[in-house]
């Protein structure tokens, strides 16, 4: 396995500098407009998690590890999932079935018009960005840390 290759390519870096904010903004947009346009929590989450991959391609794994905290991503993922379950359970609490839309009271087409669906999208997006981000971080760090890993094995 190739080790210790530090990627320093100015073209990639400057491209990443441009695309990174776009990816983030687009991701957030897609999450928030999940009920109005194609897309939703999952797609937006993937877009945001793609930012991790962009950082990796441009700045290498050290940067990724210093920027993102894998442990916290794991926690965030659980929070997102719990939020989804809680929002779903709201339907039960209000006396309907699971996932029933209980907050709905607005005109269609507006940003905040879909009641629980909006918040569910948000929760899913949160979960996915944390989860996929965690996945990418893990894969990246595994790629470069096999030697450390083998030491663990001998213990």
């Amino acid at each position, binding site marked *: 396995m190739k080790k210790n290759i530090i990627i320093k390519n100015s073209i990639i870096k400057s491209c990443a500098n441009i695309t990174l904010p776009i990816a983030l903004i687009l991701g957030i947009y897609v999450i928030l407009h999940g009920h109005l346009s194609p897309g939703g929590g999952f797609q937006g989450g993937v877009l945001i998690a793609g930012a991790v991959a962009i950082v990796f391609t441009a700045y290498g794994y050290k940067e990724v590890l210093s920027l993102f905290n894998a*442990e916290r991503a*794991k*926690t965030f*993922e*659980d*929070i997102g*999932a*719990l939020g989804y*379950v809680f929002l*779903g*359970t709201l*339907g*039960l609490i209000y*006396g*309907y*079935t*699971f*996932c*029933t*839309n209980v907050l709905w009271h607005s005109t269609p087409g507006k940003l905040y018009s879909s009641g629980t669906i909006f918040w569910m999208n948000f929760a899913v997006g949160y979960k996915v960005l944390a989860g996929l981000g965690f996945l990418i971080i893990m894969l990246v760090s595994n790629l470069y840390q096999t030697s450390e890993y083998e030491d663990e*094995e001998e213990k």
Partner: protein
Amino acid sequence: MTSYFSNLPIIAILAPFLGAFLVGLMGGRKKLLNVQRSIAIATTFTSFLSLIYLIKPVILDKYIVAYWMGNWKPESQWAIGIGLEVDAFSLFTALIIAAACFLSAIYSFKYMEEDNGLDKYYVLFQLLSASMIGFVLTGDVFNMYVMLEIMTFAAIALTSFRNHLYKSVEAGFKYIVIGSLGSSFILLGTILLYSQLHTLNLAQMAALLHGNYTPVSILALAFMLTGYAVKAFMVPCHTWPVDAHMAAPSSISMLLSGIMSKTGVYALVRILYMIYQSTGRPEMEFLIIFWGTITMLVGITMAVVQTDFKRLLAFSSVSQIGYIMVGFGVGLSVNKGVAVVGTMGALFHMLNHATFKSLLFLCAGAVLHQTGTTDLNKLGGLSKKMPYTTAFFIIGTLSISGIPPFNGFVSKWLIYQASFEAGYAPVTIIALMASVLTLASLIKVIQSVFFGQLKEEYKDVKEVPLFMRIPMMVLSAICIIVGVVPNFVSKYLIEPAAFSIYNIGNYIDVMFEKGYAAKMFKETVSIPSMDYTLAGYWNPLSWLILFMILLIALILFFSFGYKSSNNKVIDDLINTRYETFTGGEKEDYNHLGENDMFWGMRQDFGRYFRFIKGAHSGVVNDYVLWVVAACAIVTIYLFTLM
């Protein structure tokens, strides 16, 4: 509509999911470990309890619970939401699953204490339980697929949980390759079916597909059969569970073997009986019975030659699935009376297999926990050190080989009767022989693990702690109780489940509205009349009383002899007449390893055993090829005969 029980199915699914995320939130802090354990036990118990509350409406009052997520009810008789639908068969399977998960959670309490990363274990464990319950309660094909995938991932991760062992990692990899191949087949079948019917709801699929077979739907059937056969360990798709059961922690092996295989069987039954309504199709009946018989035979002959405790149990599990599928195959028979016997036998065997195989795996786990190995050649003589485990294992052995009055007898007998009455005499003979071979393979385990000579290195082995003994106790109690009162169990659990399998019209009507099934079928859908007379139950109670009388009399009579011999053994250490007779050999040389057992048989059938052992080569590519070949054969068979 909104009765007290209408929300119970979703609670049963939701509780373990919620618990999983909560445990994940807590992270790997040592202080919170006990909290996490309690959460796992509490959530599995919650789902078990909510399913128990469903027994009265669903099983006793024959009510089918339909539940639409988000209140998205069908729009002009077209399902647009995701629905849960709980009939007696779903509930029956779900009850087995929830009970086993609860017991496994208790068992894990002490069994897993030496491992690290336990928070991840409990997250995955609860995901596994939740997805299995969700799988059987859902009324939506794609939801089934999603639940199946969650289940597969959790199971793979749990299989390779002890990733410092090479076998866990290898088994996990084989599992993921073959398992995801099976999942892909299932997805392919599902979407092919969707392309024809444009719906994913189980009930609606059944209604639309009635008498409406096209090449697409037959291709979908072939893919789905193979895909779920991978999940239900049917030969030749049985290669992953064997490795996985061997490598996983025993609390998980129990779930994988005893319970997860049932989800595959559940799906096969739903596909055959409900979606494709193959009841009365002799070609489907033949396919399933033939497949089941092959499974039975290959599983058990492989089990006889194994040298690893858990691997042997896994292969025997494969053969037990064969029994279940033979029963369900007979259930497709034209002859209603015979079909009911077959279905009931299969359902009963599902219950029984879940209990005794879980029990056996927990015993294997106890041995592994105390000695650190499951190699039959290394173990020996543990019965004096672990008397309870030995007793439980013997109970499990007697149950699985169908010795009366344990529970395996009842279901196996129903399956024999059904297959023989349906005119498949060779199947009955093979089933009976497989039963004897099961006994032989487990006797091998008893001889080389619990009896025989005690090895030096296991001198200080102790009995397992109480927390691990409780689930084993419960399971062996179930083994005995179900065997003693089979009439009661089959009246209140098996018969409603068998009825609900055949009662397709009602299943469809409840999901949509009354008369929908009749409209789609273009004929009146009658409630199937079930004829239980051929299932003439074995009534052991009458002679069990006599059994007890005899037992008490004899034990009273012989207890004097037993008592008087008690003291001599202990104080008479010098007297050589209490030594085992070895013929002058040194003890180190005369341990009969399991390799030498049954050499008489292996000599005669050496060619067969060499072939079948060589076929399980351990190369992933071969196993994938088997699955693909099975799919091809099923496809060709279905296209020629349907």
